[in-house]
């Protein structure tokens, strides 16, 4: 394990995640003819929450004090498995771990809702579980496709000169669509639905626990948004990137982050919220698409 890169990743993740959320808020605002908040607003929000007191909901057990921190920890742990601004990742073979952490953190978030004993939290939690059950398979399949294409379970930026082909494209599109759902924004904020459920699982949390949960959600989103970069760096010819920090990697990273954020903002400002029924249909279609990508990898000769 490369501790230096791990530390770098973790620090970058914690600093950048709220900034990425801020960028989303600004882009959405501009699409609504508003100026929007400053890009640093999400930092300020978390800082404000940290200054407030923690009031555990009445009748809830010890889990409400544990789960927020757990959500944050699991999200941060995702950054141990991938490379961000360097070509190497902190550990080898982290791809499977990444997928598992992504799924686990979603369920922990749902559990946090139920643990609060608030009826809205419980409904939100149950919605989250239903959705996770539908979305995660798409992520699993499209990430698996990426792993198969790259011929390695390590999520790093080793350039392998992969040819640009249909399987790669379809897998990338399927992944992007799945990740849109993970952001917890309209039209996919079925679980948190503020105007329906007053915030769902987040409802009973305030102060530092809420700060932990929000930061955990931001970091998780950032981790998921960090994957499209690998679809691009795999295309580079072998040996074109050195070890350590790489300007090319950083450039591609920023580009893919920007792409994800713009997609999220566009979705957020140009549609109404899905109900479970509509969301399920959407995810079923995305799952089908990701399966198609996986099949194509094996079916199309020379794809690997």
């Amino acid at each position, binding site marked *: 394990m490369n501790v230096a890169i791990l530390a770098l990743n973790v620090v970058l993740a914690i600093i950048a995640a709220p900034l990425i959320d801020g960028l989303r808020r600004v882009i959405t605002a501009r699409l*609504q*003819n*508003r*100026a929007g908040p400053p890009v640093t607003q999400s930092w300020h929000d978390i800082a404000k929450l940290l200054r407030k007191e923690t009031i555990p909901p009445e009748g809830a057990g010890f889990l409400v004090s544990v789960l927020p921190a757990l959500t944050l920890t699991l999200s941060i742990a995702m950054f141990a498995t991938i490379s961000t601004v360097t070509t190497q990742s902190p550990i080898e073979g982290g791809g499977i771990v990444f997928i598992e952490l992504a799924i686990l953190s979603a369920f922990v978030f749902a559990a946090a809702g139920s643990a609060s004993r608030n009826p809205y939290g419980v409904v939100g939690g149950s919605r989250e579980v239903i959705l996770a059950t539908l979305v995660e398979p798409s992520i699993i399949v499209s990430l698996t496709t990426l792993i198969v294409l790259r011929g390695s379970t390590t999520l790093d930026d080793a350039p392998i000169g992969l040819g640009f082909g249909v399987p790669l494209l379809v897998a990338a599109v399927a992944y992007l669509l799945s990740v849109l759902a993970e952001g917890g924004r309209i039209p996919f904020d079925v679980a948190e639905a503020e105007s329906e459920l007053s915030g769902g699982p987040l409802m009973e949390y305030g102060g530092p626990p809420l700060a932990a949960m929000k930061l955990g959600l931001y970091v998780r989103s950032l981790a998921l948004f960090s994957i499209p970069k690998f679809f691009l760096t795999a295309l580079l010819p072998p040996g074109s990137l050195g070890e350590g920090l790489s300007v090319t990697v950083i450039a591609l990273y920023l580009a893919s982050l920007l792409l994800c954020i713009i997609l999220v903002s566009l979705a957020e*400002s*140009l549609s109404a919220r899905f109900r479970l029924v509509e969301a399920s249909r959407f995810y079923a279609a995305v799952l089908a698409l990701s399966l198609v990508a996986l099949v194509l990898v094996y079916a199309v000769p020379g794809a690997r």
Partner: protein
Amino acid sequence: MSGILKLLKIGVTKGRVTRRYPAERTPTPEGLRGRPVLDFDACIGCGGCATACPANALTVEEGEKTWTLRLFYGRCLMCGLCEEVCPKDAIRLSDEYELATTNREDLEVELQLLRVACSGCGKYFTTRRVLEETAVEYSELAGGYSDDFRDVITLCPDCRRRKWGETIADAYREARYES
């Protein structure tokens, strides 16, 4: 899809509506009903505004030697009835609407006028200014500001009524004398 594109077009072409308040204020049109402002010099103390005010934001307290008008902006509707009713334009609605404060006293305005005593019984009965106002208006009818006129005009309503009664009685006696 067309809905999405049309919405995108609106979002992209209409510019930004946010105003960086308070640095940038929305222009207010002429005739905005803002907070009423009292003109101390013009007010004569008739109390018409307090009678007209539907919300009891304007109240009058008649002390012995003083007449006090209180305006509490916390209750004011900015309806403008006070302005409509005032005979002297002493209360007018301005265009100020930023009245938020953490200090209640900031919203309380007091205007105090002196009252005058009746030249007959000594009871304080009206404000000096109302008296002057009345004097000016009726002196023309009375044919000038004579001593007799001043004696009558400085009487309180009760004394004036008594004086009037005496005047009628005198005139009656005179008439009887003549016939």
